[in-house]
């Protein structure tokens, strides 16, 4: 009987310890009704993977652009014009005399660059092979306005080049066909007599699937320079023009049989570029100059957004007296804030209407990015829109860092899954890089 007991115990123990399998099955990914075999992404710097005020890839920043993350989850090949070395140059942090300081990238237009400023890499000048067909068609500075010229005047004034108001001849960099925005160098824009438009690259892509997050710059390029109601450098794109060009993009995509999804424009005035320097932080009266065409100098109120770019002027003692106010270019005054917000709502209406009329779904990046302002958690990490410590935005305060882009990729994929019955797995946001501290 004693032996029997022991055998019984051993027997039972063996049986039971075998029953300890707890592992879950691996996920099976499926494309649903979508064809991801040739995925292209349309957009601007956000799509290109720009962060810290530049295009760089030393820790895979560009490799982890949101469309690149989406493509990896799709299991499809995705060609990006990746930079090498220091890329275009970028903002970074230094630890100086016990303080963490933001060092802006080297700017060829100014004389007093910080000696620690990171300059563009020599390879960046001839950065990418324009004969290669790229999947990531995100171009820093790209407006919907720039997609193509509706007439010869548009083509020759500001539609044939990207992101500047320089005269057309300059925009074309002489006859070399070089777009003013260096971030478009990877695409062939022809020359001044044989112009190639951005939309031509879309048309010849033969895409089977696309994501389209164009539109941000149509609002941002105006407001990030402090806005200007009358004679600003880059005007808010007229909503009707915006709609016409957006329609054309989708019509082209429809014509090639591409499936895809469009994204609304988020409220850029809620990003750290606009929200970091506040009167509360400065804790004193600040004098500002309203738009370029007014001579109104007044005390800033809470609704005026002092831009991150005001840092240098404030450092030089500007803004504290009526005689020496902050420049209008470093403040988005309260009227301009209202204009920007209303404009974003306007073009989002256009984006939704355009997408609907072409049978395309929309991912609501406006709402998603808004929820980041109140804070979100991923993998136990709290992210919000605070500058640097918020963890989601890069040092330029406008563009997300890799964690932010991963979070955006997940939102795109969730919308894609909802619309195409696919099963793209979200990525773990925590495993993407945030701020690089000194």
């Amino acid at each position, binding site marked *: 009987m004693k032996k029997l007991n022991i055998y019984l115990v051993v027997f039972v123990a063996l049986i039971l310890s075998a029953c300890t399998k707890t592992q879950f099955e691996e996920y099976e990914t499926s494309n649903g009704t979508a064809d991801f075999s040739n995925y292209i992404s349309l957009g601007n710097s956000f799509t290109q993977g720009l962060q810290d005020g530049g295009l760089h890839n030393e820790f895979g920043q560009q490799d982890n652009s949101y469309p690149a993350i989406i493509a990896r989850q799709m299991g499809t090949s995705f060609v990006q014009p990746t930079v090498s070395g220091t890329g275009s140059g970028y903002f970074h942090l230094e630890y100086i005399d016990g303080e963490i300081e933001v060092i802006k990238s080297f700017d060829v237009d100014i004389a007093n660059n910080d000696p620690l400023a990171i300059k563009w890499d020599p390879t960046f000048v001839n950065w990418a092979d324009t004969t290669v067909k790229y999947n990531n068609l995100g171009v820093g500075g790209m407006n919907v306005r720039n997609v193509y010229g509706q007439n010869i005047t548009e083509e020759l004034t500001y539609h044939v080049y990207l992101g500047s108001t320089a005269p057309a001849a300059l925009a074309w960099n002489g006859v070399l066909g070089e777009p003013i925005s260096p971030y478009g160098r990877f695409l062939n824009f022809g020359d001044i007599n044989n112009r190639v438009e951005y939309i031509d690259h879309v048309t010849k892509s033969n895409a089977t699937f696309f994501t389209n997050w164009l539109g941000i710059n149509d609002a941002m390029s105006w407001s990030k320079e402090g806005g200007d109601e009358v004679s600003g450098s880059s005007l808010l794109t007229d909503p009707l023009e915006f709609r016409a060009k957006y329609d054309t993009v989708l019509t082209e995509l429809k014509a090639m049989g591409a499936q895809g999804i469009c994204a609304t424009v988020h409220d850029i005035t809620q990003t750290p570029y606009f929200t970091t320097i506040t009167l509360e932080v400065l804790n004193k009266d600040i004098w500002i100059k309203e738009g370029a065409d007014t001579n109104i100098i007044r005390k800033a109120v809470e609704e005026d957004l002092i831009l991150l770019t005001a840092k240098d002027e*404030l450092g030089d003692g500007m803004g504290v007296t009526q005689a020496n106010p902050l420049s209008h270019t470093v403040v988005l005054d309260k009227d301009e804030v209202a204009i920007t917000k209303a404009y974003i709502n306007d073009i989002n209406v256009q984006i939704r209407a355009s997408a609907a009329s072409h049978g395309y779904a929309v991912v609501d990046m406006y709402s998603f990015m808004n929820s980041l302002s109140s804070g979100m958690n991923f993998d136990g990490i709290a992210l919000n829109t605070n500058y640097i410590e918020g963890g989601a935005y890069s040092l330029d305060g406008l563009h997300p860092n890799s964690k932010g882009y991963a979070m955006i990729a997940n939102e795109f994929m969730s919308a894609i899954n909802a619309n195409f019955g696919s099963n793209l797995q979200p990525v773990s946001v925590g495993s993407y890089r945030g701020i690089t501290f000194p």
Partner: protein
Amino acid sequence: MRRILLSLLLGAPAITIAGGFQLNLQGLKAVAMGGAFSGVASDATTVFFNPAGMSNLDHHNFTAGINIVDAHVSIQTPEVANTDQTSGKGTPIHFYYSGKINEKLSLGFLVNNQFGSASSFDDDWQGRYIIQNISLKTFMFQPTMAYKIHDKISIGAGFVYGMGSFSTEKAVPLASNTTEEGKAHLEGSGDGVGYNIGVYSQFLTLGDDAKNTKFAIGLDYRSSIAVDLGNGEATFTNIPVSLRDKFPEETGFVSKITLPSVFTVGMSIKHTVAEKWSLAFAYDLNMTGWSSYDTLAFDFKNNDTPDSKQIQDWDNVLTHRLGFDFIYQEKYSIRVGLYQDNTPMKDNLVSPHLPGVTQVAYTAGLGYKVNEKISIDFAYIRQSASRDDVSLAQYKVEEGNYVQQNGEKVQTGDFNYKFNRKVNVYGLAVNINIGGPKKEAAAAIE
């Protein structure tokens, strides 16, 4: 204005020590019978389950036991199909003595591990910012006395001295040019005191010596024990140079863990046919005061290190325990039981290192009486549980990422997952009874 003001917490090490970390393994007869014992009091383990039950025991009784806890937990998130906990096996022990001094008075002592948990994950697992590994160990020491105040009623009380130690690690999401992320390691130990009181009554016996049925009830209350961790040590590694003032290589911390009180009402019925067999039924109802575990806070001695505070907000739980013990010829014993294991954790505050679930667990065991002096018990527990509904197990508080606690913003995590959990517990104990009158021993040998 070039300076960045790091005004908010940068990845504060909020740490959960948690998850029903009570070890209900303090006696193997009890374990085999679903954990019901406060109305049984048939061996020295009653020092723990119900000190008053010591009056029930004759002579000098010793019990020494060990359990092997073999837990397997797998976690699934929307992002990662499967992550296994890498925790090793736990081996809680117990030792009891109960001795009868005279007809009225009994004295006893215990050493055991009433609370504990150990779990770990691979270094690169997705939830490493929540928890990487954790180990909590406690030792309790309890000198005890019982007094028979009436023919049918006894009372007992013990003073409890508890020692606790823990260590834990989590990743800190701060990168530099040369490091991917930092790591926080916290360890500390401390002690606290409490008490254990009980009442036991074998109030009714039906039948005669040859064939009888006995009814007994027991009440027991074990107080909570606040373990002060006054001299904790925190080390932060792989922290970017510029943030070392916030996360220094070494700093101290202060914390406190309150081990919960347990109130038990129990009963037993034992039917005996002399020299043939007996069958006992036992039932206990536990009320565990987990609501004492509402917040876990770490106050770091380094002023710049953001203090960590995490809401636990556990609930008190009721546990039903019942079991049967069939004894053949006073020598062989077969026991079975079950208990309903209720999780004290709120659905949205479940940490992945010890995920809780309300479940019914099954127990079984064998007893063998070698001779009048020595007997051996084996026990086994099987738990198998899953939670598939992601929303049930989210690590999140409703309103955003912060909750207000006493007017302060407290950081929480957000982690949605499913889990499978299977636990096997194997126990072995030896009971020794010595010092009985010689004639009784002689009679038994015959």
